[in-house]
């Protein structure tokens, strides 16, 4: 059925169904910018996008870097919490990478593949916080 005209991607669409995150807090996308124009000629792994997610007092700012097919997400997490981890999840729940949040709030998730991705922030004594899905 997936080969029928107009029905491309049916398997992936059906596989998107997952109710496991319904009770988690969701950080909404509040900023999504395109490439930085001024770096196009001079940087090997240019910033191809900047995103920010917010939930209550937590804000995650991300820069998306591209080097060939590989992507890196770096940025800062702001909010009142102690030890925290940031995980990169793919559709189906697979965890691709995990980074600890530095005292300064900085993090980097490296060697990511292209495609849909979602981040999960795990903080001490707090429920997990997930971001909206976005595409690398």
């Amino acid at each position, binding site marked *: 059925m997936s080969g029928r005209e107009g029905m491309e991607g049916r398997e992936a669409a059906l596989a998107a169904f997952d109710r496991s995150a319904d009770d988690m807090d969701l950080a909404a996308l509040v900023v999504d910018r395109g490439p930085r124009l001024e770096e196009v000629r001079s940087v090997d792994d240019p910033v191809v996008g900047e995103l920010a997610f917010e939930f209550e007092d937590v804000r995650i700012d991300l820069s998306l870097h591209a080097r060939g097919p590989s992507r890196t997400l770096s940025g800062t997490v702001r909010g009142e919490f102690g030890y925290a981890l940031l995980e990169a999840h793919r559709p189906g729940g697979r965890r691709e990478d995990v980074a600890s949040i530095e005292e300064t709030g900085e993090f980097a998730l490296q060697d990511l593949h292209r495609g849909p991705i979602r981040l999960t922030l795990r903080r001490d004594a707090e429920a997990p916080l997930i971001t909206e*899905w976005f595409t690398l």
Partner: protein
Amino acid sequence: MRQAACGSRGAWRDIVDRHLPMVNGIARSFGLSAPDREDVVQTVWLTLNLHLPRLREPHHLRAWLSRVTRDKCLRQRRRDARQYPTDPEKFAHVDGDAPDPEAEYLRKERDEALRRAVDRLRDPAERRAALRFLEPDAAPPPQDRRVAFNERRRMVRRLRNTLEDEI
């Protein structure tokens, strides 16, 4: 939608089968590469899955999906834009009034619905006459203006009834 939010995979499948052609159509109209288009379409369904418990108006789902698909396609296109130093003279002839991709998709969807309605007209001569209205370059045959007007009015009424039945 409520059933899907409560965990029914069958209800989710019904939503996908009903709306996937529209989502794919909008994504195609943005001219993304095939891998980018597949990623965007998958992200749209992942986003709907995430927001399903928060959506309260089932009759707004089509519009919601259309808006989200368009938004994600625009973001992907902007992100993938490669920028090279270029002589501005090369853009002097570019048409700045090119049609909006979503408007193009909606026009195509409307024309397809019209063609289906025309196909259901019983009179072959009326079908040919109706098709002439969909082909802007086709010249109408010479005939009495009053007769042509009445025929056209009857034909439009039948087409409208057929389209309303379809909706």
